[in-house]
Every structure is written in C-alpha cells, then in structure tokens.
C-alpha cells in the first residue's frame, strides 16, 4: 500500500485482463462470429481512502467484469488487483473480509427479516456476537431500519429493502465497498436512498468503488472516475482533471468519438 499525496491507496488494479469464450447462443444474440470476447483488456487504476471512485462506461464496457474480479468472484486471466494490499488472486479470503460487495438489483431473500439477515451475514463474515449486536443497533438506528427490523424484506418498500441490502453489505465493517450499478433500475426516490447512503458511508470514512453508465451519478458522488470503453481505461483522474471546463457528458462523447469515429 503506498501513499500518494497523503492519500491511502485502497484498491489497485494492475493490468487486469479477462477473456470469455462465447457460447453459441450468446453469439447469436450479439450477432457476432467471434468465439472469444475480451471483456477487460489491460485495465489499471487506483482508488484512494475516503473517496468514491466511479467506473463509467457504456453497456458491455467491462465494468461488471472488473468489479467481479476485484471482489474475487472471478479470476483475472492476467494481471492482479490489490484490495487493502491483499491480492485478489492469492488472498481471496482476506480480500472478501475487508470488502463489501453489492449489486444494484435486490439480492436479499425476501423471506427473511432485516434482523435475521444482518445476523446471518454477520456470521458469514465471522463477526462475533457482541460486535454484531452493537453494530446492528448503530446501523439500524442510523439508517432508520429499527422500526422494520422484524418485517420480512418482501413486505418492505423497495427503498427500504434496498437500504437493508446496503446495510447488510457492510455488516462486517469493511474498509471498501464495491458497488455495481448502484441505482440501476431504481426510481428517483429509491435511487436517492442509495446515493444518500453512499455519501453517508463516505462520511463514515469508507472508500467506495462503483460502476455506472449514468454521468450525473458520477458528478454527484464521485471524487475520482475512470472511463472504460471496450475493456480499456480511456481516461482517468479526479473529476476536475478529467473534465476541465466541459461537463462529464461532453467530455465522454469527445473521447468516445475520438476512438470510435462518428458512429453511434
């Protein structure tokens, strides 16, 4: 882990590469003859402590693949990444313990209550009972879940359910939270719950890595962003460095047309 300008490097991706072989069915859907698809192609970047880092890219750019490699769900073909200094290739279990992973769609079983799920995932991360109880009290109060603690997730509003999956993903007090498409498919109210939550997490001193294709989300939340197109990092830096005088959207299309020409 290195310190740059007083910033602590929390996540470092080094030349990540991932190629998938494409099934015949997928070839038909994507109208391609290629049997292999390079989803992520030599991606490197760093995210720093206490910041929100956004991976911005169009559909199929390789965002989900990158975040899955960072959260040890899949293995890179080449390169490596480090979360809190632990290699995702060699120390997967350590990485999992200091990281919370979330995707935009609800990923909790509706059958259970927030209280139960919190305890369950606490146990999955090996959090001891006393710590877990204290943390539950703190987080449930802070995010207004305590009144719903015993209501089954399926019976809650989408916003509340989303909040619960967010809280559950940080049950083990991870340093880093990795979040794939946090507001995908959510209405404005629920999306606001999520963005508020992320800002709150940042205020708690957590580092956040998120992916999105929504410019405004990056502008609203992120300190730093990387633009990914076709599995490559095209531009990266703090928002000011990245955009200069342009809006993020203008900048993105400037870059995009630079690479792809005027075809859209």
């Amino acid at each position: 882990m290195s310190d740059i300008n007083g910033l602590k490097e929390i996540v470092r991706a080094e030349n990540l590469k991932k190629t998938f072989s494409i099934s015949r069915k997928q070839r038909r859907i994507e109208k391609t003859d290629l049997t292999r698809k390079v989803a992520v192609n030599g991606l490197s970047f760093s995210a720093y402590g206490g910041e929100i880092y956004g991976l911005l890219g169009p559909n199929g750019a390789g965002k989900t693949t990158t975040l899955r490699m960072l959260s040890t769900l899949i293995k890179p073909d080449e390169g490596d990444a480090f979360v809190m200094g632990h290699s995702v290739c060699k120390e997967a279990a350590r990485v999992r313990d200091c990281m919370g992973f979330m995707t935009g769609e609800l990923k909790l079983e509706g059958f259970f209550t927030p209280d139960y799920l919190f305890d369950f995932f606490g146990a999955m991360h090996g959090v001891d009972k006393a710590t877990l109880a204290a943390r539950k009290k703190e987080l449930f109060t802070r995010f207004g879940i305590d009144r719903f603690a015993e209501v089954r997730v399926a019976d809650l509003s989408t916003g509340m359910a989303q909040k619960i999956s967010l809280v559950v993903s940080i049950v083990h007090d991870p340093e880093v939270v990795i979040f794939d498409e946090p507001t995908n498919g959510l209405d404005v109210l629920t999306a606001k719950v999520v963005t508020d939550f992320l800002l709150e997490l940042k205020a708690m001193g957590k580092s956040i890595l998120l992916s999105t294709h929504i410019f405004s989300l990056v502008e609203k939340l992120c300190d730093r962003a990387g633009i990914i197109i076709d599995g490559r990092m095209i531009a990266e830096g703090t928002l000011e460095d990245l955009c200069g005088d342009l809006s993020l959207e203008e900048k993105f299309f400037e870059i995009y047309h630079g690479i792809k020409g005027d075809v859209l």
Partner: protein
Amino acid sequence: MKLAALMRKEFHRFFHDPRLIMTLLMPGLFIFLLYSVLGEVIHETEPAKYDYKVYLSGQSQIVSILENTVIGTGSSIEFLEVSSSEEAIDAVEKGEANAYLIFSENFDASFDAGATVDIYYTSSDVDEGTGESFYALANSVLQTCGMRFSIVPHSFLTQESLGKMIMKSVLPMLVVTFIFSACMSVTLESVAGEKERGTLTTILATSVRRSDIALGKILPLCCIASLGAASSFLGIAFSLPKMMGISFSVFFQSYGFVSYLLLFLSIMGLVPLIVSMISTVSAFSRSVKEASAFTSVVMILMMVLSLITSFVSNVGDWAVVVPVFNSVFVMEEILAGGAPVLLTLAAFGLNLVYSALLVLLISRMLSSEKIMFGK
C-alpha cells in the same frame, strides 16, 4: 460456526413456511389414501362366502364356536383329518387346504397354563384370500375367548393375485417418485432459486468456504426431505395391510420388525442421494425453470428405471452399486418377503458415499466462475 449459520438459515426458511411443510407431507397421505382405496376396491370384489378346508388336530370347545361363527357369516367349513403333521403343513403351503389348526394337548383344561394354538395358513390370494380370511376369523374368535393362551400364526406367503402384484411392483416406483418430488420441492427453490435471484452471489462474496456453502445447503435439505420420505414410509406401512385386506398387526407379524427397518433404511438412503443430485443439477442451471426442466428429465429416467426393476426378475446383487436403482431393488426384495440385511446396508452406505461425492462436486461448482457467472 459459519456452517451452522448456513444450516440454520435453511431450516428457518422451511419451518416458517407452512405451505412447504404441507407439500412435503402430502405424498405419504397420498400413498395411504390411494392404496387404501385400491385395497378396498380389490377386496370388495372378493366373494364374501368361502368354503374353508381346515386341518384340525387337538380338541377344544372353541372349534364348535368357530364353526358356528363361520356358518354365521354365510360360509361353510370342512374339518379334515390329519394323518401326519408334515402332510397337513404341506397341503396348506400348496394351497390345497386353507389352514391347519393345532390345539395343544388338554387345551380347554389348561387355558391359563401354557395352552397354545398354532395356525398355519397361506396368505396367498390366488385362491381369493381364503387362508388370510380364515386366519383373521379364527384369530378374532380365539381372542374373544380370552387371551389366556397364546396364538402362534405361521403364514406362507405364496403367489399373489395379479392386482396385488402390480400394486407391489409399482410401489417402489411410486416411492421413488414421491421422494423425488419431496426433494425437488425443497431443493430447486433453495439452490437454483438462490442462484437465479443472485442471493447466492452475496454469500459467495463473503469469506465462507465453498464446501461449507455446499454442506450448509445439502445437510438441512436432506433433513427436511427426510420428513417427506418418512411420510411416504408411514403411508406405505399403514396402507399395505389395507391393500392386502388384513389387519395391521397381522401384517406386521408376517413382515416383521426387521423388514420394516430395512424398508425404512432403503427409503431413507434415497434422500441424500436425490437431494444432492437435484442440487448438482440446480447449481448447474441458470434459473429455477431450467433446473426444473432438467430435473424432470432425471425424474422420468428414474421412474423408468424403477419400473424396469419391478418387472425384470433375477437382477443380480451387482445392482446394489447402481445409485437409486439399488434402493428400488432392495425394496422389491423386502416387499417380496425377504430380509436382505447386507444388501440394504450396502445400498444405504453406497448411496451416502455417492451423495458425499456429489457434495464435493457441488463445492467445486461453486468455485467455478463458468458455472456461477457464465452467460
């Protein structure tokens, strides 16, 4: 500790959902009702009047009571002279006579002092169940005379009528099917459902060992599905006598405790095997729909297999190494009146081993990104 939490979660989900419990317990009730009704129908068509031929040795007043009772039910009875005991037993076994009744010496005088009645009868029903019905009748007469002497029944299970034979031979298939559906109802949702909904991914992103995840699913699912299997077992245990038109106690005596235990073992041995088979298929599938399509194919295969076993005789003991097939094979032997202790234990043990191998396979699958995250 993580394994315990994983297991608790499965149990919690199940035992807080009354509908799931119902779907599990239904099969047993279904077998019971089906076989009881079938039994009633079959036995209703039997003539209510018999002409009993019974060998009699020894003397008692009970004989005349018995004779009157028989006549009272509209049947007739003919007592035959016994020249030698062997000959009489032989005749009963061959079905030439319905029963052989032996009162011990000085029977009436020693009511309280060790008097016994031996009854040999055929529980064959090629001759329309006369042996059994005579035994049932004699038994009830003897019992109303007081149980101060002991009744020793000896039955010969001989050929059966076609109807019963069919019922018996489809029984293992029914059992397999019901256990399969019990396992399916709990496993598909729990494994394929979690994969489809992505909740499995949430667990995979924690530092839990993959083998714990696999075991944390399979063990509780086995326990839960065992309830279903136990219900099927009870359904069979209570409906078989009805199907044969005899009382439960007579049935229990003729099969015996060991057979029941073996039947129970061979049914229970199927549970972990089928649960882990369905789990494997589910872990492989992308959605519950896909998983249930695959599983249905497996189920049909299994039904065909168990049906074949029923109609092919002389399957060698090697069959015991074939998963699922082995339990069916053992079940048949037991229902045919055998008590294949070693075979049953071997089938049970082997099925456990196969299940363990499948659990290993599933933990490998959980680590495989192609299977968990493939498109």
